[in-house]
């Protein structure tokens, strides 16, 4: 303890802080001292202790005096300690709290933990090797984490596999109507499959019976989209819907499958929008008020007015996406309103003169 000297707690030029820990008590050898609660600071040059209440009470010992560190792990009702063995005090030394002591070591008692950080041997000054070493250590740690993660993943998948096998036996049971599983249980079972993401024919067959989640979702989508769909000319492609809905949600996004299921239910639920699949495979949500004849008449009128139109031109005229404009034209063509001119410049539609002019 006699190695300690009073100081002002300021760092020397070139001295850097390494670690700090609150709630540290100083022991002179085995004996308790008056320095009970304080902040221990490890710098590149010194070990400092500052009293918790009386901030001007600061002790320090130069690291050059530190011979050896020893850890004493915490025990029952005993906090972890680090024993700092010190070499004899130099003859010329600033005044300290104790002028002489027969103990050659002090103990630092860590009442608020943190002994691990503080016990970094002060000899390891950061150098290139030191940096390399710490990087290496970090890499090792990371690799360990990842391989841990993979291991955990394999275990988890093992469990999942069991679930899949089990669910398959049950599914066949339900299908063959062996063992009368009640309606209630079937619903529960379906929910399980859904949660696990197990594709199953059972879920698809009985689609119409109304999965609560999907009917709710369908209603929600319909009320949310009715206006935007009306504004964009009565139709919206499912990919647009997907983007719009998920952008609006921001979190807990919808999966394409969920969206699809919900849209399939819309017509059955009598909602103001419904799913429509075009011959080309394009899927749209269409507002119920949208009238096919009206579209055809409008499109025919537009084409006649402009003498000819491509999908791109129509899309700009009415503010639709090109894909939808093309569908409109194709639909109109199918019903005889317009006829096509296919060339290298793309597909262009002209009024159907056979239909309109009286020859």
């Amino acid at each position, binding site marked *: 303890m006699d190695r300690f000297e009073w100081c002002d707690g300021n760092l020397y030029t070139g001295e850097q802080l390494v670690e700090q820990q609150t709630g540290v008590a100083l022991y002179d050898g085995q004996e308790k001292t008056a320095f009970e609660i304080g902040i221990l600071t490890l710098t590149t040059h010194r070990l400092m202790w500052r009293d918790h209440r009386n901030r001007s009470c600061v002790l320090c010992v130069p690291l050059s005096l530190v011979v050896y560190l020893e850890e004493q792990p915490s025990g029952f009702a005993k906090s972890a300690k680090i024993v700092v063995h010190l070499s004899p005090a130099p003859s010329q030394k600033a005044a300290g709290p104790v002028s002489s002591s027969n103990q050659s070591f002090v103990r630092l008692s860590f009442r608020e933990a943190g002994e691990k950080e503080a016990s970094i041997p002060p000899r390891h000054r950061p150098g290139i090797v030191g940096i390399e070493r710490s990087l290496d250590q970090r890499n090792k740690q990371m690799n360990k984490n990842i391989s841990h993660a993979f291991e955990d993943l394999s275990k988890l998948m093992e*469990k999942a596999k069991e679930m899949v096998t089990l669910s398959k036996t049950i599914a066949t049971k339900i299908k063959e109507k062996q063992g009368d599983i009640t309606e209630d249980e079937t619903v529960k079972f379906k929910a399980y499959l859904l949660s696990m993401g197990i*594709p199953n024919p059972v879920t698809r067959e009985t689609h119409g019976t109304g999965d609560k989640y999907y009917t709710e979702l369908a209603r929600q989508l319909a009320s949310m989209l009715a206006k935007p769909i009306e504004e964009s000319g009565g139709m919206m492609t499912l990919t647009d819907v*997907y983007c719009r809905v*998920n952008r609006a949600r921001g979190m807990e996004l919808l999966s394409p499958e969920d969206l699809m299921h919900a849209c399939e239910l819309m017509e059955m639920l009598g909602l103001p929008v419904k799913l429509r699949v075009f011959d080309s495979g394009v*899927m749209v949500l269409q507002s119920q008020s949208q009238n096919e004849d009206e579209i055809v008449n409008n499109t025919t009128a537009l084409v006649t007015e402009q003498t000819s139109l491509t999908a791109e031109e129509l899309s700009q005229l009415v503010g639709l996406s090109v894909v939808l404009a093309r569908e409109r034209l194709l639909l109109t063509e199918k019903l005889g309103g317009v006829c096509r001119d296919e060339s290298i410049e793309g597909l262009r539609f002209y009024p159907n003169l056979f239909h309109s002019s009286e020859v």
Partner: protein
Amino acid sequence: MRRGAGIGAIKNKNLAQARYKDKGTEIAEDQFSQMTKQMEVFKKNLEDFATKHKDDIRKDPQFRLQFQEMCASIGVDPLASSKGFWAEMLGVGDFYYELGVQIVEVCLATSHRNGGLISIDELRDRVMASRGRNSQDVSLDDLLRAIRKLRILGNGFTVLTAGSMQLVQSVPGELTMDHTNVLQLAQKSGYVSKSQLIKEFKWEEERTRRALEFLTKEGMAWVDDQGGSERLYWIPSLFPDVKSS
């Protein structure tokens, strides 16, 4: 003597059958309650796993790939429903769904230039740009998975392989082998000409014309009449330098 044919025997037989049926029901019920139990256990496991490794899955594309492959191997689709355990607890769903949204947006934004055909590398660059700098890394596998999910929303979004290159088609319409062959040939320089195609694939004139006209009509190829002796067809999706623009 045991095979009696009297009324008693028939009754016995019926009784036995009824018993079998009961037993069957019992077993099925057992299995069901077993599943309920296992489900709880599994959920717990997944929760533990999620607390430990959620970040790994989010941040490490390699780990994500492993996870997806393992799911596929046991026949589970973690992305099927946003109400699934996987999506809810691990957050894998949101990652891919969001990626899906970004892919759609990028494809729409570029379709006027490339006719709805975009190379997967360009798509990745653009998606990364729209995600901002601080987001997680996205691997090609992630992109392909997200695209595969989008496919059920109508028949847009197909991944074409032309030679070593993968292209994403975001507009409906089927490309034939001939068309992809043209795209493959165009990879080297960004353009093709009729004579090149005829020489390379030994196609007849008519076949070449059809393939090129289709691509031009769909807006996937651009015509260049100033390229010398012959008309050149440029494929904007393959322009090497527009990527950075």
